[in-house]
């Protein structure tokens, strides 16, 4: 934009075009697999087979796979479960992570190093599956929706990221707030949080994607069919092609069309969230808070 009033050489422009070309190529290669999934989900399976398994632009469209998937009660239900654990879970994650990271970022917190050590320790070591299962069972969370939220309510790594973000906020801000009579909670709520939108969004997205892809805890802690999240159900549909099950005469092997439709249903909602959060990734951290 600044270059508008400068005379630009023809080489510059060629150079730009080459860059555009390569970027477009990289962009296409990222879209290609997604396009394949989408097209395969919309094409009758016979058509897919006829073309050797690859379809980029479907010739005949069919929404049968989506209709059939959504007509089963378990997919909409699983969708509800996943949305619940994603929204509520991310909310709880962010509150707890902030409440942990903020005190740890204050240098004058007594015993800060010891607490930090505890946090880092859990990053490197954990109790293993069986003891964790015992705790989840002991707290009565087994077979409840909370079993997929509470055990991972705080991820230590995110605490560290958030903590170092808070540490980078200028000390002057805190001093100014304190001089005006603000107490710790007010500083956190009115000074720190508004400035921390980028890190909140980033970490929120980490948590959110984690919840959306919830699988392991659901398999381990939840046997109630009505509480299965989307990924468990989708995997159930996709995996029917495995050796052991294909030997079963009753098993209805879903076509590639069905499988791809399940993939689309499971991944598109979370992909749609990205563009809204992306701007925060690139935004400067402290736009306009300190002048001079």
């Amino acid at each position: 934009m600044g270059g508008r009033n400068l005379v630009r050489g023809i080489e510059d422009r060629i150079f730009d075009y080459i860059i555009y070309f390569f970027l477009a190529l990289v962009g296409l290669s990222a879209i290609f697999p997604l396009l394949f999934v989408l097209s395969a989900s919309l094409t009758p399976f016979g058509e897919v087979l006829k073309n050797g398994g690859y379809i980029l632009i479907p010739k005949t469209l069919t929404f049968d796979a989506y209709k059939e998937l959504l007509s089963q009660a378990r997919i909409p239900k699983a969708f509800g479960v996943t949305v619940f654990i994603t929204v509520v879970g991310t909310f709880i994650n962010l509150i707890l992570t902030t409440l942990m990271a903020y005190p740890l970022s204050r240098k004058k917190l007594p015993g800060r190093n010891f607490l930090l050590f505890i946090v880092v320790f859990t990053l490197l070591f954990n109790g293993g599956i069986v003891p964790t299962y015992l705790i989840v069972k002991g707290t009565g969370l087994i077979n409840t929706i909370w079993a997929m939220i509470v055990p991972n309510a705080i991820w230590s790594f995110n605490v560290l990221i958030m903590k170092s973000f808070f540490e980078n906020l200028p000390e002057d801000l805190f001093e100014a707030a304190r001089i005006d009579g603000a107490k710790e909670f007010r500083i956190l709520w009115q000074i720190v949080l508004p400035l921390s939108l980028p890190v909140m969004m980033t970490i929120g997205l980490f948590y959110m994607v984690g919840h959306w892809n919830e699988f392991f805890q659901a398999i381990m802690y939840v046997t109630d069919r009505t509480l299965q999240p989307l990924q468990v159900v989708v995997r159930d549909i996709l995996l029917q092609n495995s050796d052991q099950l294909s030997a079963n005469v009753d098993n209805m092997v879903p076509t590639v069309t069905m499988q791809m439709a399940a993939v689309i249903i499971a991944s598109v909602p979370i992909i749609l969230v990205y563009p809204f959060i992306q701007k925060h990734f690139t935004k400067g951290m402290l736009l306009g808070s300190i002048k001079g």
Partner: protein
Amino acid sequence: MRKRFIGSIISLILMVSLFLVACSSKEETTGSSTSDSSGNGEASENIELEIISGGNNLPAPEDDVIKQELEKAIGAEVNLSVVSSEYDNQLNVRLAAGDFPDLFAVNRQQILDFSKKGLLLDLTPHMEKIQSVVDFIGEDNVTKAKVDDKVFAVTVPPQIPYNTYWIRKDWLDNLGIQAPTTVDELLAVASAFTQDDPDGNGKNDTYGITGGVLNAFQPIFGAYGVGMPGSFYLKDGELVNSFYDPAMKDALSTIKKFIESGVVDPEVVTNTALQHQQKAFQGQYGIIYIDWPNITKEVFVEQIKTVNPDAEWIQLRAPEGPAGYFDGTHDIGTAPRYYAIPKELEDDPAKLEKVFELLNYVSSDKGSKLVQYGVEGEHFNLEDGKVVPTDLLAEEGAYFWLYQFTGRPEMEYLKTKFAAQEEYIEYAAEQPRIEALNGFVDIPEGYNPADATRYYEEEIIKFIYGERPLSEYEDFVATLESTFNYQAMLDAAEQQLTDKGLVK
């Protein structure tokens, strides 16, 4: 310094209490709905049976008619849950944590392991309570779940074999050749399929034979009277292991000949699950070793016809060789699954009764029809005592088998549910096969089947691809015996099969 220390303790306590508050408030609201596995103090009218097994495609409870009907029949809640590939993990964690389901699927190895740890209920003293189950599955099958004369599980009776070679009849017709009946003819036809452009598209894009790894060659091993690598079987009344069968080398060299002439799917050893099926449907392979459901069920026929309306697959009898013809190896000792009850359930007789009631019910005439064919009047109708399925069965019946805790009368079941495929079912079931006894042999200590299997499969593939000369076959067997301790397996097989009276 001291002040800092106290401060750190205080903040730690605060943090911990924050967690506890967060957890306990949730527990209050939702904890009450969890199943109480200890079961004491529970009112008997509200018994909840939790059943877990491997499997998939179980619908939501309100769509699950079998669940509803079973609950009506036995007067207890029946909560089945299935996971596919993570099942063993899930089961191990739950058993290790002492959180037992009331009925769970296991395999033979798990019966051995778990019963040794005292986790499984010994059913022997309860045998008369599950008499209908015993009558339904037969004494033979009860025996399969025995460890030291104690029955630790309910055996799901074995299935009949489904696999055969299938060949493209339209290709045979295009080339004007006959279906092969001997191994030599099989090679000739496979070569013709590879080189003579059987689909008439003018491109050299076809192959003779495909299948899932070594299974593609099952009938060729059979033609030499050799079981698949690793199998134990009887030959002239003597127990033989396939690696020591003198005909094994002949079989391998014949297979090598097939591969050398380029008539075999070049990716045959990497075909997993049903990849070979998809490839065959795409029209590049003329002969495939596959089970009838995966090539004759309506959905698949439709797929085949969409790709090529002229494509016609027919069953091909196993080729004849020096030992006659055998359509591969079929293990007569295995069972697809077993269902075990945790020992802990002894302390809850009311619940245990319900589990027995459930098992008896699915073994009774009425209950067994329910878990096979669904609800009478909806999924099937009875005409002169014969089950006639409706369209709804084909539509909804894909998950019913998950409730067949005591199996089903296989032949009758298949013929009823897959009436259109009857001739293929019978044909596959009638084929002579080498009857392997591996299922009767428990893995001995000191032998790691996973390692050994990986080793011998790799080496067999090297032999048939000519990467290792067959003259080194004896070295291979020697390594298998010593390094992989296959000798332990051989001794165990000999002893256990003799004890069971299967070998004299």
